[in-house]
């Protein structure tokens, strides 16, 4: 069962420089909310930004990760 901490680490590893907060919405390890801030989002549409986060987990979203609510923000270049 994935944990909020595991999701946070995987997003941070996949999107360089990302600042990530992940919350387990139900405590059940399957409904999560992620807030991701990264300069990598600059110049990309919201759709593309969310896809970048979903892509970290591939088919796990909809599987073990039943729901992943995403908020993305463009941060400044480090």
């Amino acid at each position, binding site marked *: 069962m994935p944990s909020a901490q595991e999701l946070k680490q995987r997003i941070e590893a996949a999107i360089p420089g990302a600042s990530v907060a992940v919350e387990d919405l139900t405590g059940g390890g399957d409904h999560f909310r992620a807030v991701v801030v990264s300069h990598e989002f600059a110049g990309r549409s*919201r*759709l593309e930004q*969310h*896809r970048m986060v*979903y892509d970290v987990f591939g*088919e796990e*979203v*909809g599987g073990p990760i039943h*729901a*992943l*609510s*995403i*908020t993305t923000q463009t941060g400044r270049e480090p």
Partner: protein
Amino acid sequence: MTEETSPIRDAIQKAIDDHEVILFMKGTPDAPACGFSARTVGALQALGAPFAAVDVLPDPRIRQELSAISSWPTIPQLFVGGELVGGCDIVTEMYETGELAQALGVDAPDAAPADPPAAEAPDPSPMGIENRLN
């Protein structure tokens, strides 16, 4: 079954092409089966925008084929003019910023509430795509 000859995928693509605004959701607009779908329906209804709706629950292949078309893993999915707009998070954000009204070509409410109201009784009948696939 190959990807090229999937009748379900063809039917989904045709539904996307044939409807200016179409929402793929869990349940129906008057009986959403998931909080994310309910919230998305609520945003559309708050703007008074007519939309077609497809329930993905009756056949798991609808969701599989839809995600293959859209490269988007979750439900709901809103399409406008044949293009994926996004899921619940994006639609909600766009509702709050007024972008959704703009995308739908309707007047934005003077003061959009922070959260879309709960889903009300639906305007259009949901399109029963599953019935056309049998």
